[in-house]
Structures are given as structure tokens and as C-alpha cells.
């Protein structure tokens, strides 16, 4: 009899406790560390979506979703677009978001378009069809209406954010966010292990350590292109560039140094974005590389390769490239931060889910000629192939943003890191701190 009474009660208690552990709750300050050292708060930085919002946002598939605009229509072969603003949206200073304010901000961000207010709607016109307008708008965060307000920004050192109580999507779970800027990766990992931070960037080689003791690892899509770039303006022999490109063993780099994170590639755009990256041969051709290097005078076979120590796995990748080049008969001397180096290992970020825009962005970042507009994948492939002709840029791999999250960090719904690596920390809530660690 007694047993029949207490057993259900005990079961209910267990269920109640478990429910309390997984149920989101408000409060707490999220501590984040990053290598980035922005001189000013950049609306295009991964942390910008905490503060700034656009009319639309892209979901995980890249499809536009309502944000500050709750709906939109286009007509006239996409020459006229009308966006209906979300009502009762307030800026962080408490003022309402009006169509006039949106028009004013967009006119500065999207020159060449006719933008007007139409009541609570915003009308955008163009002489030609602007089918990619939604992508443009998704990448144009202009309004300080986000879930967090910028509290303080100490360039290169620290940034703090406070929960936006009037957020149109509802108050975020977190009371605030403290971001420590310019923190080296190794220190971030130590801080994560010691419980001194909740979220830290992680190098591929540290993934196992980062995921120990109940910690989680978050990653974006492989949006960071790691590539070798010959110093512009220097007359390096094409055979030398090709020999180096053919000597690189990308698979070993990807499998070992990057711990299979991201993808080895010989293309600029990642496979997940373009769909054709596999068509760029990534396997080494040592025999041809040796033949090309052998045709060079001895003095022309020497190169200096530099890297930025802040780039993840940069040293290991550079040294591996030097070892591969040595097999081809090239003498590559590796040194960090050498402004006079012949070749440098760079990291360039894919900033658009639209392949053409992403390729254009990469070309611009790499100092390559801007690719022509490509309406089809074949045209885009041809453009990318053309960009890579001459081996001025030798893609090595695409690497995702990797974050380690402390065990007390929980995600309520959508991922905290988007495919492009943006921070969506309004979905995060904090649980109890593990015993012995700082809150």
C-alpha cells in the first residue's frame, strides 16, 4: 500500500527534476572569447546580429525569412518590391522603427536603388529586375533593433551587450553577454577548460579537448577559405606557382591537421555552396610538380612562406605545405608575419550564401579580378576556374568556425552559430554551473 503510494510520487519528482534541468530559464551573463580584434563595432562581424537586424534574414537553407519586414511582394519582373514593416518594433534607444528611418538607412547601404516609404511599408524600385534583392537585404543589417543592446565596446579588448527588454521577438534568455576580444586560441581553450568562459573559439586540433566534460562543439558551415596566395606584383614564374599547387597534399592537411573539419579543396567556393568544388582537382601530382620545379633555375626554386599566427592551424598548414614543396624540389622557408614573403597563407571568409556573391566577395578579398555575373552554375564554375588560372591563389581547404561551449550553455531552438558563422545567442540560455567552476 505504502509502496503503491510513494512510487508514483517518486516518479513524478524525478520527472519534475529532469524537466527543471532542460527547461530554459532567464538570467545570467554569457562569457564569450574570440580572436577577433575589431577596431569598431562592425555590422558585418559575426557578433553584429546580436545588435543589428535587416528586413529579412536567411534560414539554414539560405531561404529568406521575415525579420523586420513581416512580408514582401514584388511585381514588374522584380523591378518593384514592397516590404511591410513589422509593427511595434523599437530601436534600442526606444524610438519606433519607422518606414522613413528604414528608407534612410537603406538608401545609404544600397545605392542605385529607388527606395521610398509607403505608409508602414518600404518600396524599392529598379530599372532592371532585382531578383537577388532579398539576399542583399539579408546582408544589410542596418537597424539597432536586435535582441541585445551594445553596452560598451573597448576596441580590441572587450565588448558587452545587455538584453533588449523590448525586443520584438521577445526578451532573450540571457541578461547580458561579455565578449573578450583578441584572446589567443590556446588561451581560449584553457579558459574553456577552466570554466572561465562559456564560449570559445576552437582550433581543429583541439576539438577533442573542447568536447570533453560535457562541453559542446558548435560549428558553422565551412566558410573560411585557407589558401596560399602569391604576393601580388611579383613576377613569380608560372611554373613555380603550378609546381607548388601540384605538390600540396590537401587530403593530409584536412585529415590530420584540420582533424577532418571542413573540406579539402582546390576551389574558392566550398562544395556545400557551389556544388562543383569537387571538379577542381585537389590531389597532388608530385611527378609533374617535380618536373616543373626541375625546369626552373635553382635560385628560382626558393620561396618564403608566411602566415598569420592568429589563423587557426596556420603554422601547421604552412609547414606541411613547405614539406610538400620540398618533395617537389622547392625550398620553402616558413616564417610568421613576414611582409616580404613570396607566399602567404591567408584565411578568407565566405560572406554570402549566394554562390555568385560569395565568389565575388572572395575575389575581392583576394585581390583577384571581379568575376562577371553568372546566372548559372556552369558560368560560375567558369568564372571561378578563370580566377584560379595562373595559380596566383592556391586553395587548400575550407574550414568552419568552431566553438566550444561550456556544459551550462544550452540552446533553445535554432543553432547559436549560423551557417555563415553569425552569432545567434538570443537562443541561448544558461544552466547551472558545474561544481568547482566559476559562473
Amino acid at each position, binding site marked *: 500500500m505504502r509502496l503503491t503510494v510513494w512510487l508514483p510520487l517518486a516518479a513524478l519528482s524525478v520527472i519534475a527534476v529532469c524537466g527543471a534541468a532542460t527547461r530554459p530559464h532567464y538570467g545570467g551573463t554569457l562569457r564569450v572569447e574570440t580572436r577577433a580584434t575589431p577596431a569598431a563595432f562592425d555590422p558585418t562581424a559575426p557578433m553584429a546580429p546580436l545588435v543589428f537586424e535587416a528586413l529579412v534574414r536567411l534560414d539554414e537553407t539560405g531561404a529568406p525569412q521575415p525579420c523586420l519586414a513581416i512580408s514582401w511582394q514584388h511585381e514588374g519582373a522584380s523591378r518593384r518590391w514592397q516590404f511591410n514593416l513589422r509593427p511595434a518594433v523599437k530601436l534600442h534607444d526606444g524610438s519606433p522603427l519607422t518606414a522613413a528611418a528604414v528608407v534612410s538607412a537603406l538608401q545609404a547601404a544600397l545605392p542605385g536603388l529607388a527606395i521610398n516609404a509607403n505608409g508602414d511599408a518600404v518600396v524599392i524600385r529598379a530599372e532592371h529586375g532585382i531578383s537577388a534583392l532579398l539576399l542583399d537585404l539579408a546582408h544589410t543589417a542596418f537597424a539597432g533593433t536586435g535582441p541585445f543592446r551594445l553596452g560598451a565596446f573597448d576596441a580590441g579588448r572587450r565588448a558587452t551587450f545587455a538584453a533588449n527588454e523590448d525586443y520584438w521577438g521577445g526578451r532573450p534568455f540571457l541578461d547580458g553577454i561579455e565578449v573578450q576580444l583578441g584572446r589567443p586560441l590556446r588561451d581560449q581553450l584553457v579558459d574553456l577548460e577552466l570554466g572561465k568562459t562559456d564560449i570559445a573559439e576552437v582550433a581543429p586540433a583541439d576539438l577533442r579537448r573542447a568536447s570533453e566534460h560535457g562541453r559542446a562543439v558548435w560549428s558553422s558551415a565551412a566558410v573560411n577559405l585557407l589558401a596560399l596566395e602569391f604576393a601580388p606584383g611579383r613576377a613569380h614564374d608560372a611554373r613555380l606557382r603550378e609546381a607548388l599547387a601540384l605538390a600540396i597534399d590537401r587530403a593530409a592537411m584536412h*585529415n*590530420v591537421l584540420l582533424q577532418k573539419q571542413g573540406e579539402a579543396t582546390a576551389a574558392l567556393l566550398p562544395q556545400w555552396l557551389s556544388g562543383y568544388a569537387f571538379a577542381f582537382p585537389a590531389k597532388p601530382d608530385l611527378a609533374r610538380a617535380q618536373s616543373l620545379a626541375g625546369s626552373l633555375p635553382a635560385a628560382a626554386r626558393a620561396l618564403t612562406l608566411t602566415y598569420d599566427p592568429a589563423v587557426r592551424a596556420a603554422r601547421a598548414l604552412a*609547414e*606541411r605545405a*613547405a*614539406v610538400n614543396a620540398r618533395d617537389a624540389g622547392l625550398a620553402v622557408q616558413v616564417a610568421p608575419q613576414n611582409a616580404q614573403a613570396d607566399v602567404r597563407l591567408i584565411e578568407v571568409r565566405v560572406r554570402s550564401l549566394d554562390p555568385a556573391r560569395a565568389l565575388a566577395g572572395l575575389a575581392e578579398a583576394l585581390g583577384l579580378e571581379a568575376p562577371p555575373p553568372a546566372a548559372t552554375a556552369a558560368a560560375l564554375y567558369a568564372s571561378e576556374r578563370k580566377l584560379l588560372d595562373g595559380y596566383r591563389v592556391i586553395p587548400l581547404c575550407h574550414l568552419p568556425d568552431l566553438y566550444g561551449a561550456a556544459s551550462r550553455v544550452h540552446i533553445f531552438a535554432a543553432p547559436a552559430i549560423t551557417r555563415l558563422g553569425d552569432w545567434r545567442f538570443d537562443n541561448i540560455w544558461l544552466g547551472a554551473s558545474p561544481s568547482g567552476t566559476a559562473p
Partner: protein
Amino acid sequence: MTFRTRLLLVFALTVVTAVVFVGAIVSTTTRRAFERLNAQRVAALAAQFRQEFLRRQREIARQVKDIAEADATRDMVIALSRPDADPSVYVDAAQPLAQAHNLDFLELVSGTGSIVSSAQWPARFLYQEDWVTRRDDWDSQEPFLKREELPADTALALISVHAARVADSKMFVIGGEALDRDFLSSFVLPAGMRALLYRAPQSIIDSSGPVRQTAALTPLLDELRKGRAEVTRTVAWSSDAASAETFHAIPLIGPDNELMGAFLVGSSRAEQVGLERFLRRVEILVAAGGILLALLISFWTTARITRPVEALAAGARAVAGGDWHTQVDVRSGDEIGALAAAFNQMTRELLEQRDRLVQAERVAAWRELARRLAHELKNPLFPLQITVENLQRARASHPEQFDEVFRESTATLLAELGKLRGIVGRFSDFAKMPPPQLETVDLNGLVRDSLKLFEAQMQAAGVALRLDLAPGLRAIQADPGQLSRALQNLALNAIDAMPSGGTLSIHTAAEDSGVRLEVADTGQGLTQEECDRLFTPYYTTKTHGTGLGLAIVQSVVSDHGGKIAVRSAPGKGTTFAIDLS
């Protein structure tokens, strides 16, 4: 060369020789001592190297074995033996292991020779180390030397290999230490020594890094490559001898008997050269001081030795010059002093002898004068006595003839008295010889005038006069009276020397410093003894005469500052030569 100079040279030579000899002995002894000390230090350092090398071999073997036998390594072997093995998980495994075991090099190599992890060159993962799979007895092998390639260069490493085995699976643990700056820094080097490490084929380092100037070591290294045995050579780094170093090279041989490198113990010769230079400077200073001292000593010594000698020489010269009163003031008691005393004794005795001789000569002269006077006076006195006695006898015996006898006797008395007066006058003239009244005189004219008085006498004596007078003979300063008298005396002597007739030759000639007048006869000549005494007063070879004629001639010639000499031999006549200035 003076005695003083010789003495100085002897002293200087003695000092310099002594200094050089002592310096050579000291330098040789020092050099040998340095070489002995250097050899001991090199041997000690070489022994230290061998001991350290052996210690490191053991330590490396132990560390590598520990790694291979560690549980974590065994777990790794097990994990890698699985079909789905992911060696990338262990790519960074070697570095912390190497740090934990104090190894410079550590590679974890799979049983197939693929590098799983490399501490010294992480980027070489998955590369093949085929050499490690070629033998299976690594566990019993001693650590060996290996040339280890690194990203930037090549290192010389002391390597040990141990296989970590689990069942049929294995993994090679290749660990070692670099023979590099740190290795060299572990040696305790005495001052002036250094340790270098030659790493074939070209690199040479010391404890502070690469050694840049190594060209001078090339011959040593070449010899090392050929012989592969320990070599000791002195290497000159520059023209300065102090820069030279003596190197002892210990070859480092690899497992394939390949010269992998060498341990070079360098011992600077700077200290030795510095000391040798110091000794040389001291030698020079001592030699210079010795020479200076020799100079002073020689001056002092020669002053003590040569001063009496010089005084003696000066005294001898004074005596030779006629100063017989010279006495040498030397008071030393040595041989020189005895010599000086003997010299003084000699001069004193000479003076005494001269005084006695003068006295004797004076007595002899007086005797001669007395004899001559007696002789000269006796002749007129005897006729006077006879005449007076004749007068007495005539008065007594023949008074009638007394007047006549008286006239004749008085005439004779007067004549003899005249002779007496003449004799007295000659003596008086000789005694009263006046100083010459000089005037310009034509010698040839004086000769002609003086000889005119003797023409009748010569004619009576059958003597022919032959004049050989130099024409244009320059005038001289002379007293014509005295010179004429001297010439007349010579002419009279010549006529007297030719009682049976002959030729009287008068010859004048110009000389460099004056004129010469020669008066020669063809008489019977003189002996050498007669010639020696010819100018002695009152000496004569004739039966008559006072013996003053030639004495007067010599006096006149002497008063005119001239010289007179005689040449004669028995039967060949006599020639008097007078030189006047």
C-alpha cells in the same frame, strides 16, 4: 778600436748573449709547460666529452625505452592496429612526450614506417621512415649518430630506436638529442678553451651559435675525413700569432662508418703567445738595461784601467819629448800601479843618470878645455920661455949681442903674445856668441863673398873651388856676419882636411821649406865616431886649433833655426849640409 770600445762590446755581447740564452731557455720551458698544460686540458675535455656522450647515449636509450614501454604508447599501438585506425588523432602526440622526456627529437612511426607524429618536424606526419623498418633488433642497439633533417636545416642527432610492441603490432619510437649549442654548453671549459662541433658536411657551431669563419679549419677537417681518427693541429686564424688555436678533433662516426661530425676542442694560444711576448719584451728590456749597465760598467772599468795606462802613455810621451821630470800619478796597487811606479822610478833614475852624465860631461869638458888651453897656451909659452932665457943668456954671455937679441926676442915675444891674444880672443868669441841680427840675405852672394878671402889660401894649398849655386835661389832671413863666419869655418876645415890639395865644393839648392847649403871636401874623411863628436866644443881632429870652429857653426845654424848634418866616410871626403828656412 780602443780598449774602451772593445771592453764595451765585450760587456754588451756578454749581457746580450746571457739574456738571449736565458730568454731562450725560459721561452722554451714556458712553451713546453704550456703545451703540456694544454695537452692535459685538451685530454680532460676530450674525456669529458666522451663521458658526456656516453651518458647521453644511456639517457636517451632509457628515455626512448620508457616511452616505448609506457601504457599510453601501448594504447596507441593498439588503437593504430585497428582496421578503422585514425593516426591523425596522434599527430600532436610526439611533442608533449618529447618535452616530458627531455628529448629534442621524437618520432612515433607506425610498423609500416609511416610517421604518426613528429616532435621535431610535425608537418612530416604520414611521411615514410623506411630505414627504421629494415631491421628488427633496435631494442638491442646502442644509440647512434644520425643526420636529422629539420624544416630549416639539418641537425646532428644522437638517436635511439625502440619498438613498442603489443601482440603482433608495433610502433617505433625514435628519440634523441641534438648535438648542438646546448650540448656544447654542457661542457665546463677552462679559460682560453672552447668546444666546437663540426656537423658534416659544412656546419660548425659553438655554444653561442654558428661559427662563421671556418676556412682555416678546412685542412684539419680534410685530414679528419681521410683518417677518421683523432687529429691535433694548430690553426692560425690571422697573421697574428696570438689568434692561433690548437685544435684536437674527435671524429663522430655514424653507423655506416660515415663521418657524421667531429668534436673540436680548441685551445687558444693567446695566453702562451702573450706570455712569450711579455718574456721577449722583458728580454729586450733586460738586454737594453744590460747594455746600458755594460756601458756604465765599461766606462767605469775602462776609466779605472785605461786612465793609468793613458797617464803612463802621456808620461812616456813627455819623457820622449824631453821632460824627464814627468811623474805618473797612479795609486792603484795592481799591475798598472806597479807599472806606474816602475815608470816613475825609471824617470827618476833617468834624471839622476842625466845629472850624473851632465856632471861628468861638464867635468870632461872642463878637462878638455883645460887640456886644450894648456895645449894652446903651452905652444906660445914655450917660445916665450926660450926667448926670455935667450935674453937672459945673451945679457949674461953676449952683452954685445944683447941688443940684437933683444930686438929679435921682443919681436918673437910680441908674436907669441899675439898668438896668445888670438887664442884668448877665439875663446872669448865663442863664449860671447851674440844672437843673430836677421836680415834678407842672398845666400849665393854670401857664399861668393865669403870664399873670396880664401882664394889665395886655397891656391897655396892646391885646393880647387867648385861652386854649384842654384840660380834664382830665394833670399833668406839670416845674420850675414854669423852665417859668413860659419861658412868660413867650414871652408877652413875643408882646406885643412885637404893638405895635399883637393876640391872644395859649395852647393846651394832650394828646398821645400827653405834652402840647403852643402860644403864638401875631398879629404881623407871621418870615422863615424868622429862624426858623432864633431860638433862637440873643443873637439878637433886637427893637431892645431881650438875645437871651436864646428861648435860655432852648429851654434850659428841652431840660432838661425836651421839644422846641420855631416856625411863622411874614411877616404871619401866630408860633406856638411846646412838647411835654413
